[in-house]
């Protein structure tokens, strides 16, 4: 089912919008991640889709039907909460079947459905157990099965993996992708972990400061971030940023041309700093000094000093001495210029 937000605003207090004029469409059958730092509005957006929250302004449409005024149970959605929110007094089987019991399904029918869903999420051997006996990952599977019980139009997941340890998180991430692809259910997934979002989704919506920062395919976010916030939020390494004026006396300024004058801030990804120029780099580099280097496993990190600021560089293999002055070059795909309001000038 397609979900559309049209001019949605939400204010908990009259003077400040928690969400401001949101407009987007989630296509049928897609898995979309709502990504952003905490307090950015992603869980709020999810709760608006679920009907647990009611917008102050605007309309929410499911396949062109206006559901703005509908309560959560009328919207035919399934939802998984961060703490799973399983019913602790029920067995796995009865947890999955609970929504069907409320809907007055016959006992045999609902148990059959619960068994089928348990199979889908791989907990078919746990059906009679109490939910407290399950591991976190298993509880999460049960929560997903329960959310799917009523064959909902949309599946909503609110930070479903954040209570799991790192290894299990990877496993469950793939599981959620598999279940979504098997059921082809439109899925909205809230996370603050950018790599989780990048790995799992068809599209990612970055939310920050009550607004959508960017809504596009995962790789788009990395390759063509709409603004400085997205550029620094996406990616495993930190984004180096510095004032544009530091490049004023370099030949790089000439090479960048007209767009350079509009920029106020420069952003360079740590993995896109190299020591030799090539076709994918700008032809002019800048001179800096190696302050220190550090290696952990495959990744070596170096800190260069450039006009009093420090630049992180990862992925360099050529060895040279500390305090030696070298010329570094910026690969074009990881080099951005932002204007005063943070917009990526290369996208214009």
């Amino acid at each position: 089912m397609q979900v559309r937000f049209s001019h949605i605003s939400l204010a908990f207090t009259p003077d400040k919008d928690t969400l401001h004029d949101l407009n987007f469409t989630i296509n049928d059958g897609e898995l979309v991640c709502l990504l952003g730092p905490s307090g950015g509005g992603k869980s709020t957006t999810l709760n608006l889709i679920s009907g647990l929250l009611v917008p102050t302004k605007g309309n929410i449409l499911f396949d062109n039907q206006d559901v703005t005024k509908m309560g959560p149970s009328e919207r035919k959605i399934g939802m998984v909460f961060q703490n799973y929110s399983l019913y602790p007094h029920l067995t796995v089987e009865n947890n999955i079947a609970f929504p069907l019991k409320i809907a007055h399904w016959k006992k045999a029918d609902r148990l059959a459905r619960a068994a089928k869903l348990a199979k889908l999420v791989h907990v078919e051997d746990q059906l009679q157990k109490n939910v407290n006996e399950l591991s976190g990952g298993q509880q999460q599977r049960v929560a997903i099965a329960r959310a799917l019980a009523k064959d909902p139009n949309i599946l909503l997941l609110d930070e479903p993996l954040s209570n799991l340890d790192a290894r299990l998180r990877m496993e469950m991430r793939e599981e959620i992708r598999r279940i979504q692809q098997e059921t082809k259910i439109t899925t909205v997934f809230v996370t603050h972990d950018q790599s989780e979002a990048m790995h799992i989704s068809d599209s990612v919506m970055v939310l920050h400061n009550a607004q959508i920062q960017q809504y596009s395919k995962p790789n788009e976010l990395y390759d063509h971030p709409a603004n400085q916030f997205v550029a620094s939020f996406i990616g495993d390494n930190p984004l180096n940023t510095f004032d544009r004026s530091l490049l004023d006396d370099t030949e790089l300024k000439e090479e960048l041309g007209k767009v350079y004058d509009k920029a106020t801030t420069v952003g360079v990804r740590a993995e896109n700093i190299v020591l030799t120029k090539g076709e994918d780099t700008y032809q002019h580099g800048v001179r800096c000094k190696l302050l220190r280097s550090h290696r952990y496993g495959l990744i070596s990190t170096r800190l260069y000093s450039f006009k009093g600021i420090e630049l992180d560089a990862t992925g360099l293999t050529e060895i040279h001495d500390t305090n030696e002055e070298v010329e570094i070059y910026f690969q074009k795909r990881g080099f951005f210029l932002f204007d005063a309001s943070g917009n990526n000038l290369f996208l214009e």
Partner: protein
Amino acid sequence: MTKRKLANILFFLILVLGALIMVFPFFWMISTSVKTPSEAAQIPPMLWPKHPHWVNFVNAFHAAPFGRYLVNSLIVTVCTTAAQMFTSILAAFAFSKLKFWGKNLIFMIFLTTMMVPIEMLIIPNYVTLSETHLMNTYLALILPWAASFFTVFTLRQAFNAVPPQVYYAAKIDGASDWKYLWTVLVPICRSSIVAMTILEVISSWNDFMWPMIVTNDPNMRTLPVAVASFTNDVGTNYPYMMAAATFVIIPMIVLYVILEKYIIQGITKGGLVG
């Protein structure tokens, strides 16, 4: 033997002596119950009669209509407890999970009822029940205790401990408030509810002053009232009196031994509230 070991033995003996003092009256009650009046009055007292007269229990039971009193006590205890738990669960749910105008005001108003000594309320309640011609009825014994803000207060705390997401999950699953309360919240909080239920059973079963005041009719007496007035029926027949006391005490002791865990839990949760 070390000093520490000696101290431990001494302390243990104190504990045992204390326990004997606590238990002795119960033992003495049973022991006297099965003596003849002359055996009971023997000096030095005999710990246990050679030929226990177990038949004393049967005779005492028939010396006054104890069958009737037992039924009265059962009816009053069960109805009072059921009514109080029902009204308290509903109210605690509203205070814990629902949003409505005047919530804090209503809560504060009824909170004052926890601070008032119930002995003070006996006169007006007596007047109210006389005027509505409810004296000597089960309703008079039950209605004043069919709601308790203390129980509401304690259950509300238990309900508050259930995360709001469970409520939202149930809403998404299509459950109404009523369904949520009875199929999710109550089962989750069952240990608190059981604890409060048993505490109310005990206090209702043992209640004395109010039942004594509203029952002039001997047929409406509850067991404690009947025991207090039993001397009028049997004079100074102590074995019969001890047997009558046994009728009141034994059911609660059985209940306590079986459900001790819940009683302790209720006491520790409620006892520190005030």
